[in-house]
């Protein structure tokens, strides 16, 4: 409860200021400023190579900024470890590693404070089992990780990120390999979780943005927009440099406002 009061005082749980990231000589992010409120559901969109994954990794403390500052709960990311859960876009692990779905999901219960000769407790097990249940992978729990389909693996990784019981959940295109039904199922789970955690999600799925995400950030090396999840044609044009129909196509509650009816959104 104490923590809650602290959060309210902080107001912003993530504060990225003047972030610039270079890979060797290539600039991936330039002068990005982004503040995320407690319990915000932030969607990040942008073209391929726009620096979305890079931004997430910088917030997670996995890559260090070339310049600028990142604060998570007022601390540098390296000090805020354990507060964030992460679903990566690409998995770097070897699919033939001797680990089952259940063991993978349980991994999220470990932390920097895990003692020597650790054994998972009953609570750990219960949390892992209920999450596997929720994500409909419980029946697969004894399978070796390499014997899963892409979508099943994706759901395993989401379950693993959730067993951390993080304050901030960071997902990098979590629904990329899921079928339509699984997608909407996962969005509804995320929406429920959002009541007590902040969620940042990179996605190319404009459906999700229109119906689940509160606020939107558009990234293409620079942060072009951060605000309400309704976009004007102008901004979209700037970000993607492509005809808006491509993006608006098939969106049920039209995300994109008609040109000129820009309701107070501003470029950041």
């Amino acid at each position, binding site marked *: 409860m104490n923590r809650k009061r602290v959060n309210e005082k902080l107001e912003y749980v993530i504060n990225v200021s003047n972030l610039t990231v270079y890979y060797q000589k290539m600039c991936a992010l330039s002068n990005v400023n982004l503040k995320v409120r407690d319990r915000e559901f932030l969607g990040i969109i942008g073209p391929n190579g726009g620096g979305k994954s890079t931004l997430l990794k910088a917030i*997670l*403390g*996995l890559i260090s900024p070339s310049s600028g500052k990142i604060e998570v709960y007022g601390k540098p990311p390296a000090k805020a*470890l*354990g507060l*964030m*859960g*992460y679903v*990566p876009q690409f*998995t*770097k*692990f*070897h699919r033939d*590693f*001797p*680990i*089952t779905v259940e*063991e*993978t999901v349980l*991994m*999220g219960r*470990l*932390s*920097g*404070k*895990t003692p*020597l*000769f*650790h054994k*998972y407790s009953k609570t750990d097990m219960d949390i892992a089992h209920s999450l596997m249940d929720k994500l409909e992978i419980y*029946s*697969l729990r004894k399978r*070796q990780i390499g014997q899963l389909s892409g979508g099943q693996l994706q759901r395993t990784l989401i379950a*693993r990120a959730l067993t*951390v019981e993080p304050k901030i959940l960071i997902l990098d295109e979590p629904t990329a390999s899921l079928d339509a039904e699984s997608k909407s199922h996962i969005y509804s789970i995320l929406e429920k979780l959002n009541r007590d955690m902040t969620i940042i999600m990179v996605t190319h799925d404009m459906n999700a943005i229109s119906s689940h995400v509160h606020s939107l950030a558009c990234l293409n090396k620079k942060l072009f927009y951060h605000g309400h999840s309704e976009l004007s044609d102008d901004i979209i044009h700037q970000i993607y440099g492509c005809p808006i129909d491509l993006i608006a196509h098939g969106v049920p509650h039209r995300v994109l406002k008609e040109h000129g009816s820009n309701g107070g959104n501003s470029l950041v």
Partner: protein
Amino acid sequence: MFDSLLQYQFLQNAVISAILASIACGIIGSIIIEKRLVMMSGGIAHTAFGGIGLGYFLGIEPIIGALFITIFAAMGIATIKRKTTMNTDIPIGIFWAAGMSLGILFIALTPGYPPDMTTYLFGDILTVSRNNLYIITLLDAVVIFAVAALYHQLKAYLFDEEFSTVIGIKTTLIEYLLFILIALTVVVVIHVIGIILIMALLTAPPAIAKLFTNNLKKLMLTSSLLGIFFTLTGLWISYTLNIPSGAAIALFISLVYGMVSIIKVIMERKVKSQQLRTQDNDLIDKPLP
């Protein structure tokens, strides 16, 4: 051989050191094949030769010299792995050559008649002394203790470094520790099978064990047991046929590994043809239970 075993101290030392080496190799071997560190471990192993030379040069127990140099090399290789994005095979290849050359250099600089280095290169399990046995036992205990104490953290690090870092596991620390454990294992194994043949005992048992299990703990256990079987059988072959123990063990391991691989290929073919025949029975797309 069994009569002699009760009779001769050197045979008892040989059997005990073979068992200890197999346990360390089963545990660390499982880790290095899963983490794709075989080449790096080879690099660390070969720097041990420089340490042996240093030991002779300084007039201390050669295996202590090897211990220091391998730990030093392990830290160096771990740092290179962490700090650069370049292909680590290259610096490791150089470590490899430099380590061996240093050994030759130190031996050349050591006054007096040059010692016979084949013991260290190809192993001679029958020359394990009491003192060596104490050192081996201690190092083995450190390896077992460290892996048991940090099993879950280590497994998380081996499986997914990025995620482990995010949840707060001290992956840098674990990585350095792992490299030190590899160095200790190398030192444990030198007398049993020799620097050049170490990779056989490190990689073949877990590679075979992996056919039978999908559980890291069982993989370590099965590899250790297989290692014990290989080294003791090799020791027996070496004793009865009077050939060097390191070579006997390494050849026996390679033979079994080759046979298992062939059997595996045949089995897979059989399963495949069976599946083709029963395709109509929905064997391939069996629904989940």
